[in-house]
C-alpha cells in the first residue's frame, strides 16, 4: 500500500493524512469547489477535485471519487466517517476498481447498516436488544399500521431511521398523538440524509447511558474489543462530549460488555474498525443499539487511554497484517481521556450554525492536550457540511485531572470570527452532576432548559466590563481607523487612531 485516497474532508481527512504520513504512505485528498483551500487539501500530497460544493455533487459522488483514485494511482481508499463511509455501494465500487477499501466488507456494511438486520445479528450472538420492531417500516407503511405496531411496544418509544446515524431521522414519541408528525419528520430527514425513508420503532429506555465498545477485526478471525467509551452527553441525539473509561462500568461489566460486542462482530465476520453501541440501563442491564461500521468520531479518546493508533491499525489490517495487540492492555485504560466536539454553532442562539471565515485561531497546547482539527486561521467554514471544526481531547491521571485540563484548554482555545460551542462545553464542565459523572442521555435536555433559552445568557458583569475595556482600547490604539457604523467616517476618530499609530 503506497498511496491512499481519503474520501472525506475536514478534521478526519487531516487525521488520516497524518496517520499515512507517519507510515510513509502517500496521500490523495479530494475536494469540492468550496474546499479548494481546506486544510486537508493543503496537507495532502495530491488533491483532486470531485465536483461542486453540495455533498451529493462531490463527496457523495462514487463515480468521481473512484475516477480520482484511479487517475492518481492510489491503491487504497480510506472513507473516514460520514459521507460514504457506511455506503456498501462505495465499498463494492472500490473493490470492483481494484482498490482496497479501508473498512469492513460491503457485505458487513449492508448487514449492519440495516438497523433491523443488525438487531437480528445481535440476537443471534446472544446479546440483548431493546424491544422493538423486527422488520423495517417502509415509507409506504400507513400511519395507522405504524400506530398499531407502536401500541405493541408502548410509549414513550423511539422512532429511528433504518439507515440512520448521527442522530438524524430519530425522534422520541411520547404518545400516539405525536406519532404522525414525528413519523413525517423522521422519514423526511432520513430520506434527505440517507436516501432511505424506512424507519423502525424501539422501546424507549428511560435515563439510559450510551456506552460503546470499539473493535478491531483482522482477516484471520481475530476480533479485539477496547475499553468502553461513555457517550451519554448528547444534544439532539448527537454526542457532544465523550470519555473513556465510563465511571458507570465496573471491570466485571466491562468484561461482559466487551465480550458481547466482540461476539456480535464475530457473528457477522466483521473486519477492520467498528463500534458496537449499547444502552446501559440504570439497573446495570445493557442492550445492543447498533453497530457503526467505520471509524468513530470519538476514536481519539480510545487512542489516548490505550496508546493504540486506530487509523494506523485500520490501514495495517486492510493490507493484511494480523492483529498483534495485547488484548488485556486494550481493556486496561491508562487513566482517563475526554473529548469535546467543537462545532461552528452558536449556543446563545439555539445552536444556529455559524459558518464563515476564521479570522483568528489560538489552539491550546501543553501536556495531555490533543486537538484534531480541520480549521486554520484565515480558513473558511463552509455552510455545506457538518459544522464540527475540531475535536479537543485531553488526557489526565484521573477523570478530575482530564476535566481540569479540558477546562484549561477550552479557556486557551480561541476561534475568532465565527461562533462555536466552546462556551457550551465550559458550562457543562462546571456542572456538579457532570463532574460527579451523574448523568444519562437526557442530561443536556434537562440541564440546558427550554428551547430558545440558554443558561449562558446570564453574563458575568466582570467579564463584560473587561470586554468593554478591551474593545475601547482596540479602537483607541488601532493604527488603521475604519468607518464606524454610526454614519460617515469620523475624521476625529481617524485622527485619534493615526496619532496613536505614530506613537
Amino acid at each position, binding site marked *: 500500500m503506497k498511496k491512499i485516497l481519503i474520501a472525506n474532508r475536514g478534521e478526519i481527512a487531516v487525521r488520516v493524512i497524518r496517520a499515512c504520513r507517519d507510515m510513509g504512505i502517500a496521500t490523495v485528498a479530494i475536494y469540492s469547489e468550496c474546499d479548494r483551500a481546506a486544510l486537508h487539501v493543503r496537507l495532502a500530497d495530491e488533491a483532486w477535485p470531485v465536483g461542486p460544493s453540495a455533498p451529493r455533487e462531490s463527496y457523495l459522488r462514487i463515480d468521481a471519487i473512484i475516477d480520482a483514485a484511479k487517475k492518481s494511482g492510489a491503491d487504497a481508499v480510506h472513507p473516514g466517517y460520514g459521507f460514504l463511509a457506511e455506503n456498501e455501494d462505495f465499498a463494492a465500487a472500490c473493490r470492483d476498481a481494484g482498490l482496497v477499501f479501508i473498512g469492513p466488507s460491503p457485505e458487513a456494511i449492508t448487514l449492519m447498516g440495516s438497523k433491523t438486520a443488525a438487531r437480528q445479528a445481535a440476537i443471534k450472538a446472544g446479546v440483548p436488544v431493546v424491544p422493538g420492531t423486527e422488520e423495517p417500516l417502509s415509507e409506504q407503511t400507513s400511519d395507522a399500521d405504524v400506530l398499531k405496531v407502536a401500541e405493541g411496544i408502548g410509549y414513550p418509544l423511539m422512532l429511528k431511521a433504518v439507515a440512520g446515524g448521527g442522530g438524524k431521522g430519530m425522534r422520541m414519541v411520547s404518545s400516539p398523538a405525536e406519532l404522525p408528525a414525528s413519523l413525517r419528520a423522521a422519514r423526511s430527514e432520513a430520506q434527505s440524509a440517507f436516501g432511505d425513508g424506512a424507519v423502525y420503532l424501539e422501546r424507549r429506555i428511560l435515563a439510559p447511558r450510551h456506552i460503546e465498545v470499539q473493535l478491531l477485526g483482522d482477516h484471520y478471525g481475530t476480533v479485539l474489543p477496547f475499553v468502553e467509551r461513555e457517550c451519554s452527553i448528547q444534544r439532539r441525539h448527537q454526542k457532544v462530549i465523550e470519555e473513556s473509561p465510563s465511571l458507570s462500568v465496573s471491570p466485571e461489566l466491562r468484561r461482559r460488555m466487551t465480550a458481547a460486542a466482540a461476539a456480535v462482530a464475530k457473528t457477522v465476520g466483521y473486519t477492520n474498525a467498528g463500534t458496537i453501541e449499547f444502552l446501559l440501563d440504570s439497573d446495570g442491564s445493557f442492550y445492543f443499539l447498533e453497530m457503526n461500521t467505520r471509524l468513530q468520531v470519538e476514536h481519539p479518546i480510545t487512542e489516548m487511554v490505550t496508546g493504540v493508533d486506530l487509523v494506523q491499525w485500520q490501514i495495517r489490517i486492510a493490507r493484511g497484517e494480523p492483529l498483534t495487540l495485547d488484548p488485556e492492555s486494550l481493556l486496561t485504560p491508562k487513566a482517563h481521556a475526554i473529548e469535546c466536539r467543537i462545532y461552528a454553532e452558536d449556543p446563545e442562539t439555539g445552536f444556529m450554525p455559524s459558518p464563515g471565515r476564521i479570522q483568528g485561531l489560538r489552539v491550546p497546547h501543553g501536556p495531555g492536550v490533543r486537538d484534531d482539527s480541520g480549521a486554520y486561521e484565515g480558513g473558511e467554514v463552509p455552510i*455545506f457540511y457538518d459544522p464540527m471544526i475540531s475535536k479537543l481531547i485531553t488526557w489526565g491521571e484521573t477523570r478530575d485531572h482530564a476535566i481540569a485540563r479540558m477546562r484549561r484548554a477550552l479557556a486557551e482555545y480561541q476561534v475568532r470570527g465565527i461562533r462555536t460551542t466552546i462556551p457550551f462545553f465550559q458550562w457543562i464542565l462546571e456542572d456538579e452532576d457532570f463532574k460527579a459523572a451523574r448523568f444519562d442521555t437526557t442530561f443536556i435536555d434537562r440541564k440546558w432548559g427550554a428551547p430558545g433559552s440558554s443558561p449562558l445568557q446570564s453574563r*458575568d458583569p466582570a467579564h*463584560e466590563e*473587561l470586554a468593554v475595556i478591551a*474593545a475601547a*482600547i482596540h479602537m483607541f490604539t*488601532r493604527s488603521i481607523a475604519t468607518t464606524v457604523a454610526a454614519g460617515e467616517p469620523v475624521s476625529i476618530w481617524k485622527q485619534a487612531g493615526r496619532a496613536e499609530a505614530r506613537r
Partner: protein
Amino acid sequence: MNLEIAVGNGVRAVSVTRKGALLHVSVDGRTTVVDARRVGEMELSLLVAPDDGSAPVRGVDASLAAQRTSGDFDVHVAGRTIPVQVRLAGSFGRQKTAGAAQGTGPQRITAPMPGKIVRVLVKPGDEVKARQGLVVVEAMKMENELRAARDGRVRDVAVTEGPSVDAGALLLVVE
C-alpha cells in the same frame, strides 16, 4: 476618545485617555488603569490595575473578531466570547438603554446564515407566541428553526419554501 459600547443588555459610556505609558479607561464613570500592548492585528495584551489603585498587574489577554456591522466585535476575553457594539458617543441615542435589547418595535426575522428555506410555518396575519417557530432553514446538514422573540402578529412573509437565501436576508416581519 469618547465611545458608547453596548454589551449584554446595556450601553456603557466609555472614554480612553493616555497618561504616560498607561491608558485610563473610564466605563460609566469608573476608571481602570491599563498597560496595553498590541500583540497582533486584533489581539491585545492588557495588564489591568486592581481597584485598590496599585500597579497594573492583572493579566487580560483579549482579542477581537470583527462582525458584519462595522464597530461590532466579538471580544474573546478570559476564555469567554462577549459580543459588543462600539459607537462614537451619542450614536446609540436614547433607545438603547438597559433592557433595550428586548425592544418593542417590529421583529425583523433575518437568515443568520446562508441556507435553504425548507419550511415556512406561519402566514401573514397569524398570531404568534414568544419562541414559536416561524421558519425552518437548512444549513450545515441541520434544520434550524427560527423563532419569535416575543408575542406578536405576522405582518410580511418574504420567502417561500424551497429557495436558498443569503445570510442577513429578510425572511419575515412580526409586529
